[in-house]
């Protein structure tokens, strides 16, 4: 208990310098090419090589902890446990304070080797504990590549369009970082998560011809879930830029 109280006090002190102040933050798309982006093995046992992996992002929001409702101690407790949502479509961040936001729709090339520096935005300094990424309406991802298992190959391409009633929000929690002047928000896409649960053997028979993946087969369903998975994104803050 003492540790918790001490931690809470420290936490309060470390965020108080910037909390509430206007700060300038930068945004960077920098895919970690060393982390199996274009050539990887899926959980279903396929070796996949990607030629294209693009995702359509509408906006990104960074949220302050709901500290107005929680004591410092309760907030600390919140930061060490996981939170679940009761239903799909529930906006868990509704009413919470947005500290920083990127609201220009962008098409992200997840295979790009070169970091893309976006323009800076004005933000509010302070502790951040959650991120929401909103995918665009319509087609949210394009993917093309080749999968191989046991000597059989499938060349595939897909445009991923989730059903209309499915949320386009991807939520990440437990960020536990602080925004301050010149902080840099890094957004990374992990296309391996898109394909991890695909079983390409449920496509048409293996061949060298390009197969267009339909939404109503296993690969299409897995892609639709995968591109919206929290595992498909990493957002972190380089606090001091």
């Amino acid at each position, binding site marked *: 208990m003492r540790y918790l109280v001490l931690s809470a006090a420290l936490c309060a002190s470390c965020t108080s310098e910037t909390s509430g102040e206007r700060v300038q933050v930068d945004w960077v798309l920098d895919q970690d090419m060393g982390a199996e982006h274009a050539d990887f093995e899926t959980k*279903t046992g396929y070796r996949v090589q990607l030629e294209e992996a693009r995702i359509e992002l509408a906006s990104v929001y960074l949220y302050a902890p709901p500290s107005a409702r929680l004591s410092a101690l309760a907030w600390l407790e919140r930061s060490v446990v996981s939170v679940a949502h*009761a239903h*799909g479509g529930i906006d868990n961040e509704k009413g919470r304070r947005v500290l920083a936001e990127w609201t220009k729709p962008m098409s992200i090339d997840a295979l790009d080797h070169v970091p893309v520096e976006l323009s800076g935005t004005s933000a509010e300094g302070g502790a951040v504990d959650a991120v929401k990424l909103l995918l665009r309406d319509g087609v949210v991802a394009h993917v093309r590549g080749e999968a191989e298992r046991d000597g059989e190959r499938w060349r595939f391409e897909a445009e991923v369009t989730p059903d209309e009633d*499915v949320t386009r929000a991807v939520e990440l929690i437990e960020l536990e970082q602080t925004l301050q002047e010149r902080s840099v928000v890094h957004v990374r896409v992990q296309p391996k998560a898109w394909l991890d649960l695909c079983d390409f053997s449920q496509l048409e028979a293996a061949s060298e011809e390009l197969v267009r993946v339909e939404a109503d087969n296993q690969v299409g369903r897995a892609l639709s879930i995968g591109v919206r998975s929290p595992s498909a994104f990493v957002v972190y803050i380089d606090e001091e830029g």
Partner: protein
Amino acid sequence: MRPFLSIVCLAVGACASESGEGTLSIRISGEEAAQSGYPVGEGEDQIALADGWTLEFHKVIVSLTHFSLATEDGEDATLEVDPVVVDLHQGTPELWRFDGLAAQRWEEVGYRYSKPRADARVVNDVSDEDLELMQDEGYSLLIEATARSDRRDVELKWGFPLAIDVLHCQNGLDGTDGIVVRDNAVTNGEITVHLDHLFFDSYATEEPNLRFDAMAEMTPDGRPLMLGALRGQDNLSDLKSLTGKPLGLAYDPGSAFHPVPTNLEEYVIAAAETTGHWNGEGHCEYHRIAR
């Protein structure tokens, strides 16, 4: 209100209980489904499994160890709450009654699913055997049911080792935070357990289907379907029959659970963490705690 208190309140200008005191009665309900199973309701309001299965619950035993009330300013009602174990299949009993509460809005309502403590009070007819099982295995939710289709019957016995703080509950009756304890009256509050969550095939849409096919496929011959058997469905985007034939189904966790469940057992346990509500449809936040 007594004259002295009135004078003090006027002098100070702000009293937490300037409207007096009231009683809060807390009941628990698994809704009609806990007693009648699925399908439940009629017409457009009917809740039924999309794949034709019916479910009849025999036991829905819940263990709660905390209940708390506080204001948004941090005033705690400091309730004396004994841990309880209750079978929702048997009805909607009162769990606790708190007298002498300040008649005001208590914005923060919360409670805890946790395994039965040694001093737990058994609210209705829960057998010693079930209580012991829950204590030994760390279950805070134990369900026994029969699922039926036109092809076969499946017996379920699922124990959920949940340790969850259900916090910041909204009132399902009016969408406001917590509850208002009325002056000089008994206010009723209900912990509402939504059993349909256990069978949702998606947490990425507001209107998921309830399904049982992929669960039924994991049933061992001649034995009940235990929760652990659902681990065999280890690709939530590709549910399969016991023989490995694709069922053409997917379960979509969306961003609802952290970490993302990797098999159907993890998915159903994560879903069970979200079953606790407040006054019907009131949503809460769910925080895992160390067991």
